[in-house]
């Protein structure tokens, strides 16, 4: 990419911003894993928060890379992680249902 030094700098800083934005999502995913009461609610925390966190970090790294090939590779990684995590999340929840694990309820 033919870009001047200044635009590169701006892109790099935007990337850093995105990466910083992604970190609290990972933190909340982990906090949810510890704090939430049962297997189903923990799955919620892990899949959703981590996917958004990874999305932000992928965006940030893509902006910093300054290359289309690296951007495409990062997007492919994110897509594969999305597919893997939603499918495994569903499979874990399904096997919990088959074992008759009752969801925690507020009562």
């Amino acid at each position, binding site marked *: 990419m033919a870009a001047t030094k200044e635009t590169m700098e701006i892109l790099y800083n935007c990337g850093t911003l995105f990466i910083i934005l992604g970190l609290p999502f990972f933190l909340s995913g982990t906090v949810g894993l510890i704090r939430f009461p049962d297997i189903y609610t923990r799955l*919620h925390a892990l899949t*959703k928060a981590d996917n958004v966190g990874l999305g932000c970090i992928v965006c940030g790294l893509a902006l910093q890379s300054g290359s289309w090939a690296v951007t495409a590779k990062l997007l492919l990684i994110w897509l594969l992680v999305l597919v893997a995590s939603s499918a495994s999340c569903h499979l874990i929840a399904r096997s919990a249902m088959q074992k008759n694990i009752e969801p925690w309820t507020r009562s």
Partner: protein
Amino acid sequence: MIRDHHVPRGSTLFDVNRHSFLRILVFSAVWWVLTGSDISSWIVGIPAVLIASKLSLMLSPPSQCPLSLLGALHFIPFFLYQSFRGGIDVMRRTLLRQQLLDPGLVSYVTILPRGSARIFFVNTISLLPGTLSAKLDENQVTVHTLDRGMPVWANIQALEYHVAALMNISTQKKNCL
């Protein structure tokens, strides 16, 4: 209600070629993304792409309803926005001192046909705010929700509509042919 699609018997040679060509193109793009501009990597890449295309055609035969470009243009922003909302929602519930949980199970009957559309739908439910697909029985999806006060039904219905548009599936009785 939507009937299941049947792949027509005796599809013409042209159709088969078009589908294989598309898959070869997609897998070649994936290989290029993985290896970069290294030309010698194609010594391994060409056989890998051909085998992957053949396997994918065997495991998931081309459906009659191809992806709709317009549907994809609607689906991608919808999906990104919803998953971002999902992340914010989980963050709010985990990090606040008092726990805002009222989980429960919700049952939903989908009109999407069995096959890739239904599986795609079930997998994306888990990425929406507050919902997680826990079981799929024929056309009945059991959804676990973090908060029974959320408009779970409306959210899932919106997603179903977007998936139908993406897969070119009419929500009326008429099917795409």
